């Protein structure tokens, strides 16, 4: 055959379009990232911070001043959406659309994090439970995650057009608290290194910030309510004082984000150690570390508060640090001496699994087993630890421990991510939630009020809780005593029955609290193996209708 024939044959066998494997991997990861955020948009009940902020947005929509409306750009767009629908879905979709750009941002960070590092960072963000909620819910911080990641992308660019700088200033000034740690970290690094921004850029940025603050103060055209408003500061403060979650920050982190936080902090430690040894550091690397430090302070100072925001604020930079570190760890694991590890790693995992099975059995029974079982479990734990310790003693085989750790960590991370991502009702976060029944209660109340030509009266204890489920219901009276012209009362279930009213049969609910399975390891374990056991508590609500009409 001639060369021409051979070339012709080669052309014929070459596919029409060549798709690199890495691109496919990126596409797949991005698809999973988005997929895990789609179900919550339609199926997660309005809950947590979202409930507070949607209530605030609705109040703004109907022209009622309410502290729950914080004039972030997202919150203002939510108000806009509520002008043509009473559903939370469009606002959630808005959050989802912005969050869906995060894989793109990480793609652009390949130069800084490495191809595999960026991919792993994306996978970590994909699987972080609180980040899934934050990226797909209509809280006032709906844009925060996307803004934060894109902000970091922008900071890694050598120069930006001034209009982009102004836009950055504007978006940060009208965002929530999550980007604050990054902005502070960036400012610290630039100032400490005397790497001052160009005067023109600084001016444009200041202009953008000023424009954002002015617009926020005027609530994007909804009118001034109070004094100056700086939404990131307001929401940062609110994350300490308001209840945006039934579980505490510590509980949320313990349930969903321990792997990223622990491994991330270790990765930060290694990075700092390397920098101190090298006596030099790249600005981007330093920004990441200082960002993580600020976020860690935010997280630590809010451990006892009821919000998941500081968890997300921390896991975001840690994921970006951890991604490249994991690549190194996996690469070292791949190159490691597996001669003993091929037996010891599965052995350790097997021992751990058997110990876990006993523990799950104990958890199911709600008590620890007898001494024999306890000794057995302790022995299995010792075997696991000993196997890993043996591997750790040899420099060549030590990296194989990662295999065991990844196996141990992957299961809870995946189950949590899929639990939240598939809008499972067995997850303690997000909570508290407005059950469907609250909206049904509103229907009954409206019907009764129409039939009996009287007022719908809600006890003032439920004043804030009913804003969202009772939206678009005309005039409702909030009162502490039953007025004479009331036709239906929504009243505390444990309060004495008001005179002249008959109780409507049924267990009514306005809010559900999903109590986190914390307090003991067995409790956690039982929930971990059987999500249906999650304890749900509700404040008893009674419904009364005027008797004799």
């Amino acid at each position: 055959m001639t060369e021409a024939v051979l070339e012709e044959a080669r052309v014929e066998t070459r596919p029409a379009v060549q798709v690199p494997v890495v691109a496919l991997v990126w596409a797949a990861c991005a698809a999973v990232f988005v997929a895990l955020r789609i179900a919550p948009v339609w199926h997660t009940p309005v809950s947590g911070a979202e409930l507070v902020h949607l209530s605030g947005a609705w109040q703004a929509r109907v022209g009622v001043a309410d502290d729950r409306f914080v004039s972030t750009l997202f919150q203002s767009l939510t108000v806009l959406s509520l002008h043509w629908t009473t559903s939370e879905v469009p606002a959630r979709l808005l959050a989802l659309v912005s969050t869906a750009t995060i894989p793109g941002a990480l793609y652009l960070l390949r130069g800084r994090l490495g191809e595999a590092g960026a991919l792993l960072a994306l996978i970590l963000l994909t699987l972080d439970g609180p980040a899934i909620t934050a990226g797909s819910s209509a809280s006032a911080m709906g844009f925060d995650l996307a803004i934060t990641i894109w902000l970091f992308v922008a900071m890694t660019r050598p120069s930006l057009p001034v209009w982009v700088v102004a836009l950055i200033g504007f978006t940060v000034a009208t965002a929530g608290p999550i980007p604050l740690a990054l902005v502070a970290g960036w400012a610290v690094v630039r100032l400490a290194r005397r790497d001052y921004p160009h005067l023109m850029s600084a001016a444009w940025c200041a202009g953008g910030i000023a424009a954002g603050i002015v617009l926020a103060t005027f609530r994007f055209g909804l009118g001034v309510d109070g004094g100056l408003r700086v939404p990131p500061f307001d929401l940062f403060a609110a994350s300490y004082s308001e209840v945006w979650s039934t579980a505490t920050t510590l509980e949320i982190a313990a349930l969903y984000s321990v792997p990223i936080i622990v491994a991330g902090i270790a990765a930060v430690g290694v990075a700092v150690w390397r920098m101190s040894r090298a006596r030099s550091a790249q600005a981007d690397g330093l920004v990441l570390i200082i960002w993580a430090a600020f976020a860690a302070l935010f997280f630590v100072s809010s451990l006892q508060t009821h919000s998941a925001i500081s968890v997300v604020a921390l896991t975001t930079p840690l994921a970006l640090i951890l991604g490249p570190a994991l690549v190194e760890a996996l690469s070292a694991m791949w190159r490691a001496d597996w001669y003993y590890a091929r037996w010891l790693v599965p052995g350790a995992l097997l021992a751990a699994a058997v110990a876990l099975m006993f523990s799950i059995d104990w958890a199911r029974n709600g008590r620890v087993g007898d001494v024999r079982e306890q000794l057995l479990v302790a022995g299995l734990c010792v075997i696991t630890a000993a196997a890993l310790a043996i591997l750790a003693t040899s420099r060549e085989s030590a990296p194989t421990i990662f295999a065991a750790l990844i196996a141990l960590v992957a299961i809870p991370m995946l189950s949590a991510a899929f639990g939240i991502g598939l809008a499972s009702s067995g997850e303690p976060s997000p909570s508290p939630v407005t059950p469907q029944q609250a909206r049904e209660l509103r229907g009954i109340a409206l019907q009764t009020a129409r039939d009996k030509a009287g007022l719908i009266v809600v006890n003032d204890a439920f004043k804030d809780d009913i804003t969202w489920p009772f939206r678009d219901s005309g005039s409702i009276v909030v009162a502490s005593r039953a007025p004479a012209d009331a036709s239906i009362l929504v009243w505390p279930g444990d309060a004495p029955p008001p005179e002249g009213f008959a109780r409507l049969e049924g267990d009514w609910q306005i809010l559900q609290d999903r109590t986190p399975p914390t307090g003991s390891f067995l409790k956690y374990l039982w929930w971990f193996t059987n999500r249906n056991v999650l304890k749900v508590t509700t404040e008893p609500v009674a419904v009364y209708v005027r008797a004799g009409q």
Partner: protein
Amino acid sequence: MSAVLAFWAVSLLIGLLAMPFAFALLRRLPDAGAGLAIPLGLVFVSYVYFILRALQVLPFGRGGYLVAIALLVVLAAAAAGRDRRFLSTLRRTWPGWVAAAGVFTFFFFVYVAFRSYNAQIGGTEQPMDFMYLNSALTSTDYPPKDPWLGGNSASYYYFGYVQTAVLTASSGVPSSTGYNLGLAYTFAAAATAIASLGFAFARWILGSGARNWAIAAAGLAIVLLLFVGSLSAIFEWAAAHGMYNQTLYQVFGVEWLIPCKDGITQNCFAGDLVTRGDHWYPAEYFFWWRGSRIIPDTITEFPFFSFLLGDLHPHVMSIPLVMLSMGVSAAVWRGRRLLAWSTHLRQPAFGIALVVIFGALAFENAWDILTFTALLSLAVLARNMRREGIGRALLDTATFLTPIAVLAVLAYMPWYVDFRSQAGGIKPYVGTGTRPVHAFLQFGPLLIAGLIALTWAFRRRDRDLTFNVTVIALWVPMIPLFLWLGLAASRGELGDGLDARTASGWVTLAVYGASVWLLTTAALVLRARRSAAVAVVAIAAVGALLLYGAELFYIKDIFESGSPRLNTVFKLSYQAWMLLALGGGVALIVALRKASGGRSLAGWLALPAGGLVVAGLVYALIATPNRTEGFGKDSHLDGLAFLAQSQDPKDVSEYALTRWVQAHTDPGDTVIEASGRQWRTDDKGQPVIVDGSVDYSDAGRISARTGRSTAIGWYFHEIQWRGDTPANRDEFTQRQAEIDSVYTQKDSANVLSVMRQTGANYVVLGKLELSKYPAASMPNFDQFLDVAFQSGDLRIYRLPVYEVLQTS
């Protein structure tokens, strides 16, 4: 314990963040400002918080405080970035930073341990202090409100409360614990700061080879400032053990410790002798209080007494800031370049730092501003005089300081707008002078420690120089004396003034005057010799001058009619104590060093002076077990736990009631609670007032403990803060009457009207209300108000809610 650790860690963190500022401002100090970094950081972060809250940039709540700290981090990074010697300074001074952290930690936990046996926030003016702390923490708008006068902003120097609020809020500690930890912070920061200054001055005088002596100076300065007390404690201890010597007690002016004879109750001890002496320390309740009232009709409080008592007062909280201001002055004095108008153009950040620090002096304790800006002025002048003649130096000093003074007022304008100073000018004091023995008992150890400088300041070969400056120095005590004579004569009070002072009063004045004269002479001689010791002696001279000045003049205030110089002696002698503790501590160690070297016979005079210092420690030794009841009380740090632990169920309910208000009402809410006046029903069944005094009582307690507003709290304190004018008296009395009418008129319409008028949503029916108002005259609140909280007999009522919500 987690609260203590969090508070301590935040204090240290703020100090660490201030490192770049300390390097920039205080690099001249051997530790580069390590010992002053914590108050420096706290002043900066508190100022940032205060001003940004006032400008509505920062939000209400804990988050606002944390943002202020984050902004401090950014500013610190900027300062570190601009400082090319940052790393080299850190390498040079890191032992100082470790030592400062160690000293702070040690004294913090020592005080926490002490206070944990006596954590109760109650009695004296502690409710007022707690009220201001809660106000700083919970005010929805800034400047903070005055919770004891609903609808009004605070008119007081409250920056110390803002600082304590920064530490309390950012560490996530409840205010009732933060109050006590704030005291611990102040104690520890004061110790660290004066140690840093003492070390610096001693090292400058003795040279770098005398490091151990400098450390001893630091330690002695701490002892003099924070542990030495009134020498009257020796007599207290002796009297408690039945050791009386009539003559000796009379000579030392403590005859009131001798048990009264039959039929006599004045100027003798009329208390229970049995309870007085059943321990190794005097067991009489609050015996140590007398140590702060040695000079009749004055308050002679000193730092150990303040920390023993536990009032979180401005003059106590300001100690670290005062030390910081002295540190800055010392660093300024040690600098080399000329300071003038052009300095601000060259180094604007330096001027801004001075504006924030020295502006804060007035805001934290208005009495400090004159004394310690005067020290700064002296430091600037002394520095400039090293470069140019006195005329030019004065001009440059003025051009350097004037912009700082103007900006210091502008920077704190939100506070000045609401602040109503009650100072009514300076007047000559024409009353009885201080007896020398009282002055000795109170200030003897410190003044003599300061005067020890005279033993090493003069040299035989400087005799001519000394003679020349002696005449100049004489003017320093003479000018105030002539001024006093002139003012008294112009007011027609000279004759009375000369007589009333009495011979012993003139002796005291002469001793103080001579001290000022001699110390000033020594300072001028040392200055001429370009000795580093000039600063120490000048500081001691200023301390003596304050004692001297308080004998001649007083600031006219509300106490003028009864005890005209009460506050003047109190506040100026407190400043003198701080100055003499520093000056005296260093002077004494320098003298001891000379004695140890055998080079100076005069140095041996330091030994008896040291003995007096040791005698001054008796107060701390015997008062501490008295205050803590021999460390036998329950140990905790919650200042309100005494209610929860009380045997009286009503106190337990009061605790629950207070916590309910904190948890369930909005910070901006107003509550109606007892005015504090005692009522009873007269023969006709009408309620009448039987006791109108409300100050120093539980009046306004819910407001004080929660920061929620009430219509009127402590009446006379409001008069002190806002002025004794007919309008104020009318308004405050009217408020009291309205509040009392809520509990003494059965008319529900009146209650609702008062609630509307005062903006109150809640009416408290607690232990105080049940004890102050006759039950028979109270309206039946249940009929027209909602019961929001109930515990036992105690209740909180709330206005019924009726609100139409538009949901579409």
